[in-house]
């Protein structure tokens, strides 16, 4: 699932128009992508590669990506 920051930068939506409530990385799943435009209009795209829960219940999310244009 790909989530994009809306033009007013107030929320993320997917291609179906569903809003990503909570907006925390730990709520993403492996394969989910997040894209947004930075203030200088560079487009950043990152994808969740790992999601692990430790023995004590901490959640570790690893995303990989970077600027894709600009």
């Amino acid at each position: 699932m790909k989530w994009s920051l809306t033009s007013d930068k107030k929320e993320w939506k997917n291609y179906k128009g569903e809003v990503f409530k909570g907006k925390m990385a730990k709520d993403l799943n492996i394969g989910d992508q997040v894209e947004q435009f930075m203030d200088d209009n560079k487009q950043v795209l990152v994808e969740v590669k790992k999601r692990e829960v430790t023995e004590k219940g901490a959640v570790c999310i690893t995303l990989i990506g970077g600027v894709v244009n600009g």
Partner: protein
Amino acid sequence: MGRPQFEAVVASAPREYLEKVVLLSSTPIAGGGQFELNKIYAPPGFVGELVGLRIDLPIVPAATSGYHAFYIGYDTGDPQNIDLIKGEANYGDPVYFRHGFVFQASKLKYPTSEDGAIALMSNIKFDDTVALSINYGNFTDKSATAERRIQFTVKYRQVAG
């Protein structure tokens, strides 16, 4: 009228415990500004505090220009985090952070000393909504393919409410 019944209330001390986390990654990180972002959330009801840290970032194989780096701070939900500790090394150099002993980063270190970094680290706290962010960035001209190690010890303290 019966005697009032009282139930003993034993105040329990907030729970505290330690956990070691090791993040190993050989996933190729492309040059030119690709990142590997690690976000760590404490268990619900707990605040985490970094009490030990080790970072090993080998040189980027075959790189001929640029630099690579680690950044530690808070995840704000944006690509631009609040970075508190950073170490940047030129393309032919590794980056090492060994808690209290070594802080090796040939291009830029912030803070500039091991002691300064340890002092700053003691103020880094995170919970289940504001994540600790430990990121690797590759700004060289080649992919970073050697294994990267990020190892840290966290003290979790139970909070009220």
